[in-house]
């Protein structure tokens, strides 16, 4: 037997565990064929998703239903750095009125061991930056290459802001950006008078901290 979830095929046992993850632990069994043992099924864990599913489509569906909240809960991560940027911006409300809004933009950098994440103690430590979408308040996690940022910072400690800045790349040389506007994954960089095109590089923490003027 096999189970189809979101139009992707899964082996029966893993498919049952995925259905439990999708529908929730206290849910009603969606199929009569597995009603008898529905309550005994344990939902898939992050480690199972990563280690059992070699097919990226299967892994994608597994992670989709695991969700970031469960992922954060499941893996024991350590807070490395936390920084909040307070900002004032203008939003247009439902009535079409432009309002001035103050908000705190919190970024957290976490580390998680290779053993914890993938069950392999020989692996390096992984890092991710956690932040909220300022308009939807939805949380996001982005994996980052801590050691790359560490080298770019001449071997100084990496902060959460360095990490989020590193996720953005530009070919504008440092000193050439007037301001940064961010709407989710869409980043707009405005050039200043001294702007020159150079090699593609990552934004620095200082640039992100001082030049980001608007987020939505």
């Amino acid at each position, binding site marked *: *037997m*096999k*189970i*189809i979830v979101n*139009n992707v*095929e899964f082996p*029966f046992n893993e498919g049952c565990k995925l259905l439990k993850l999708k529908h929730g632990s206290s849910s009603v069994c969606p199929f009569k*064929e*597995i009603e008898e043992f529905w309550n005994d099924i344990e939902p898939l864990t992050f480690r199972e998703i990563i280690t059992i599913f070699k097919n990226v489509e299967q892994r994608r569906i597994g992670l989709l239903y695991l969700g970031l909240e469960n992922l954060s809960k499941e893996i024991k991560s350590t807070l490395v750095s936390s920084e909040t940027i307070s900002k004032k911006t203008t939003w247009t409300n439902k009535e079409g009125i432009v309002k001035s809004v103050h908000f705190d933009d919190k970024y957290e950098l976490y580390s998680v061991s290779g053993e914890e994440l993938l069950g392999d103690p020989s692996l390096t430590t992984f890092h991710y930056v956690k932040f909220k979408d300022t308009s939807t308040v939805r949380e996001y996690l982005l994996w980052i290459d801590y050691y790359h940022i560490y080298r770019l910072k001449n071997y100084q400690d990496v902060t959460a802001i360095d990490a989020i800045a590193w996720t953005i790349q530009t070919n504008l040389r440092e000193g050439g950006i007037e301001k940064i506007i961010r709407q989710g994954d869409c980043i707009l960089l405005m050039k200043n008078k001294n702007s020159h095109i150079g090699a593609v590089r990552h934004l620095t923490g200082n640039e992100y901290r001082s030049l980001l003027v608007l987020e939505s």
Partner: protein
Amino acid sequence: MNPEKVGLEVAVQCWKDVKINHCIMDFSCGGDEMQDVDFVFYGENENVLPSDTLNDFFKHEVFEKVDFYVNSGDEYIGEFGTVRIELNEEQADFDYTKSTTSEHSERITESFIYQLTDEEFNIFRDKIEDINGEGRSVNFNYKSDCIISDDEISILEKFEGKIIHFINNAIIKNEHGDPEEESENFECDVEDTLNTAEKTIEILVSRSFYYTVSE
């Protein structure tokens, strides 16, 4: 000699001096580019005569005097053939005669009614939204999450073999040219075309056909 500097007068004189009767240029083009061309100069007795000067002259001049259609598009792939070049002594110029064969690839789609078995019909009715694929494999898209039993897996595997055989052997009418190898694909909107009374589905089979047109 610099090829840019070979003029018509020099070329005509060179043609006469070397005693050339005619020249044949082979060409092939398509995919937005012209392949390397080749000029062969023949004497009165069809003997091949060398001439770097004329070679340099014609490799520019022929594109001024003859139209070649290099841009592929829609069904048109490209063309190949020859250009015969002869001296027009009265006008002290050359005459160009193009013989060409153009290549085309036409994709034809035809609808077929496919008869399902009772078991296949039950699975299609309950679980399959649409299917598609080519001459080697079949993709099933499901209506929603579901469990496929071992019997159903076996039925779908047999169906896969049968439909691949059907697609590869489907005779498409109104075609002209030769069927291109492994060009078949198919699609079937099961939800829209499933005939519950007849237990059939409607399958759209597409295949590419290659043909040429000579001028």
